[in-house]
């Protein structure tokens, strides 16, 4: 903390003490121009923050705070390939994955654009072959099912995007289905293996390090399933025909047995939760084709350029990030709910949980000191209309302050494949839009949104003053989704700058994996001592071991 930042924080806190006394309904009553002043448009995205508990003055304070924290300097460092991931000593260049082919990007010795587009071509070769029905299994059958085995960033991003863009499925010569298996216990994999044919199933093993135990154990199960069907002698054919590897560690892939021409590489400077833009996005490209995948990249790239070059007051990621800081640090709102009003975005809350909480769920600054303020809030969510029947009760009448992000496309169901029932479905989407606007309005205004509310008993009344932002997409397509995801990525970066933390490492998830290995030895009886654990763990282990013995 410098004197300049201290000063800005003090001013912001003092300002906050005035603002937090006011109810959102009062802000709206006072200023009929509030929406006009407090929304921004970038391309097909509209960001409306007029239902946030803030004023125009707040925005000026937040901008000053961003400047005091040298946000511009950090953006420059991010986009010049500096080692912004200080604890792991590397750059974070997910933005480079979406550079157009003619962009110049030289980092040290490396022509990064050329590397990136080289891998895109490699990906295209594989995608084309599968789409043409010419990727063959060991017996020569056409591959019709692709199972992506990966976890964390190698699962959540591709899964979220393939589900979201299902309407943009690329036509292929033979039917092609893309599936995901992630959990270490094999739950999804066992289900899939039950009804897939080994002859026509291809596995994509995705792991940045290619050492992730969850992924490798699922991969081993897949390999054994194929070997049972084809016989062990066919091992080289199985590896040749049924496995693609995606990793930043080619030699680990080779060690596992992935054929060299079936390897897709990416680089250390791509963080796992930022990797859907790399070859990790192979399932996305299989679903929507390379053309669709490139549109996704283009949407994200345009957001990158917007983030780099737009003044803070019109800069979507900066506004979103700084409003988050305001909610967390000044208004003490420690929960953010992600509420897409579009069933195709069902996985988006899960995706953003990882992106935000794994990035900014930290309490040690870049200088190695404990942080002085709260960092990342708790994030959760679900498809809005379904969540209305679940946790909205707490949002409306609970005791916790929660801020919400409403995300909804304006247009839907005008694509050709919905032609026949387009009318009915469009009416359904209108209903969804209506619910979205009604909920954010009621959350903000409370009783003020209703007629004669004061005549109602207390348990039927609405406190209101729950803040929210709304992101309106013209429509959900590869381009807008790319821009939306990049918006959240950069929002996370903005907040990390203000909080002084490194958003690109995840040391908090390391030790648990190691402890699990020593615990496994105890469960399997390879290590019989239980005294070196705690009494709770020892008690649980005794119960488990008793069951496994019988």
């Amino acid at each position, binding site marked *: 903390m410098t004197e300049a930042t201290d000063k800005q924080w003090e001013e912001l806190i003092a300002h906050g003490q005035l603002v937090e006394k006011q109810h959102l309904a009062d802000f709206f009553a006072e200023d009929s121009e509030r929406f006009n002043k407090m929304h921004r448009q970038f391309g097909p995205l509209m960001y409306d923050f007029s239902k946030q508990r803030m004023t125009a003055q707040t925005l000026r304070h937040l901008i000053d705070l961003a400047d005091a924290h040298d946000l511009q300097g950090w953006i420059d460092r991010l986009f010049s390939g500096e080692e912004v991931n200080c604890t792991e000593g590397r750059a974070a260049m997910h933005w480079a994955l979406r550079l157009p082919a003619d962009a110049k990007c030289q980092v040290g010795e490396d022509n990064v654009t050329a590397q990136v587009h080289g891998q895109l071509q490699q990906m295209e070769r594989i995608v084309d*072959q599968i789409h*043409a029905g*010419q990727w*063959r299994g*060991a*017996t*020569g*059958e*056409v591959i019709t099912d692709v199972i992506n085995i990966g976890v964390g960033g190698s699962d959540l991003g591709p899964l979220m995007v393939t589900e979201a863009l299902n309407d943009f499925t690329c036509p292929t010569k033979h039917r092609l289905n893309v599936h995901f298996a992630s959990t270490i216990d094999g739950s999804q994999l066992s289900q899939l293996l039950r009804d897939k044919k080994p002859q026509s199933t291809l596995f994509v093993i995705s792991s940045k390090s290619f050492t992730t135990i969850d992924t490798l154990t699922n991969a081993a199960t897949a390999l054994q399933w194929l070997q049972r069907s084809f016989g062990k002698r066919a091992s*080289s*054919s199985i590896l*040749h*025909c049924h496995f693609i590897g995606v990793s930043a560690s080619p030699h680990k892939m080779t060690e596992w047995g992935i054929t060299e021409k079936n390897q897709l590489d990416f680089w250390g400077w791509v963080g796992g939760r930022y990797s859907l833009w790399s070859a990790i996005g192979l399932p996305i490209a299989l679903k929507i084709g390379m053309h669709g995948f490139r549109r996704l990249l283009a949407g994200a790239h345009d957001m990158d350029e917007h983030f780099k070059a737009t003044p803070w007051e019109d800069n979507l990621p900066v506004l979103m990030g700084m409003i988050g800081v305001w909610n967390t640090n000044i208004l003490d709102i420690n929960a953010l709910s992600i509420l897409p009003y579009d069933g195709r975005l069902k996985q988006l809350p899960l995706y953003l949980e990882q992106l935000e909480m794994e990035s900014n769920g930290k309490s040690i600054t870049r200088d190695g000191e404990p942080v002085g303020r709260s960092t990342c809030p708790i994030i959760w969510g679900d498809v809005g209309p379904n969540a209305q029947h679940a946790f909205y009760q707490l949002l409306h009448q609970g005791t916790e302050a929660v801020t919400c992000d409403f995300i909804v496309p304006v247009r839907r169901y005008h694509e050709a494949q919905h032609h026949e029932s387009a009318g009915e479905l469009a009416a359904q989407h209108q209903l969804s839009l209506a619910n979205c606007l009604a909920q954010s309005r009621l959350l903000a205004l409370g009783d003020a949104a209703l007629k004669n509310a004061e005549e109602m008993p207390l348990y039927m009344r609405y406190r209101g003053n729950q803040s929210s932002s709304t992101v309106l997409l013209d429509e959900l397509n590869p381009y807008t989704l790319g821009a939306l995801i990049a918006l959240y990525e950069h929002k996370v970066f903005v907040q990390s700058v203000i909080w002084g933390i490194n958003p690109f490492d995840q040391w908090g998830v390391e030790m648990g994996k190691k402890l699990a290995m020593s615990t496994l030895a105890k469960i399997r009886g390879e290590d019989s001592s239980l005294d070196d654990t705690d009494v709770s763990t020892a008690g649980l282990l005794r119960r488990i071991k008793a069951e496994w013995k019988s």
Partner: protein
Amino acid sequence: MYIDVYGDTLCALVSAAGLASSGHNVSLHVPEGPAATTLANGGCPYREPGLDELVTEQTIAGRFKLAADGAPPDERAAIIWLALSPTDIDLAFEIIGKLPTESGRSWVVVNQSTFPVGTTEALERALGELPGSESTQRVAASLPDLLIEGAAVKSFTAANHWLLGCDSPWGKRMVAEALRPYNRRRDNIMMMRPREAEFTKLAITGMLATRLSFMNDMANLADMLDVDIERVRQGVGKDPRIGDSYLYPGCGFGGLSFSQDVMNLASTLKHSGIQAQLLDQVLRINERQKESLFRKLWRYYSTDLQGKKVAIWGVAFKPESARIDNAPALKLIEALWAQGVQVHVHDPRALPALAEWAGDRRDLVLHKDPYAALVDVDALMLVTEWDAYMSPDLSHMKATMKQPLLLDGRNIWDPDFMKQNGFEYFGIGRR
């Protein structure tokens, strides 16, 4: 009677020549294409016993003549006979649209083409839209093509039976009169509605396709169980309830009449979501069967074909044809290309069609001499059973090929004899 026949199919030529042989005056209108060229030069585009002679004979007699391109029907004609290719459905409507309608001419359109069920009725509606229809007879009748290849002329002039689909008494009389010379011993015209006649043709084709796909399914099992499908085929065919036709296993059937389009019933049915489930499966099995030789090669070379050379003998969808519509060889060639294989092809007649389909490619070489296609190849695939391939010069073959590997897609060679001559042999359901 004066009859104008339209089409370049075998059926068109047989019907035209057959009708002429019993005294009708026939004008044959042939759409532009290789068949038209051959006929214009005095040749016969189809090899069928007796057909060439019949055409020549009737031409000399003056009852069979080729109509000029775009010429209207003979002014004395009342019968328009359509024997078009299954893909030429638009042409059928075009022909009807151009029929002369002056002085209240009546027309009966006899449709022998294999179009989706309901097309003949649609043709009749088109006829009804012509000027002057209120005061004249304008009728379409379905008379499905039931020719048996190899005995095509005989199956017209001495037909076992005819299926005539027609709703109009006048139309029935007209067609029956045209067919009277071939219908003398007993009445062998079965009357039904147009869509019933069309559907019967579809059911016949579907049943034949089902037998083939069934045998291919059996052949694939035979491969696994070390059973020789040839002996099985003969045993099954001896059963009088089954009979021995259309039981030959092979690497899939092609041609237009077996295509998905033809097998689709009227488009109204398609939209209602009703499908012929078995037929759908039959065609699916067939598409898969077309790649059976590829799968054998793929496994033989342990899933790595990069840089290999493979010869294909026969790409026409059946012997004696220059056409490659839905031919199994096309799927094979695409599969081989995708694995980096250079393909060398010989076919007595279908090379021009193949060259047009493939365009200019470095991984496709066409050969006029079957043995030239074998130079340094890693395998030979026999795909179309032309007579000339039945007893090839084995020592020449063996000396020419790099790897003496034979993949016989039509089971025309004897496995043991080939092995004695130093070849590795894989057939369909036998080795």
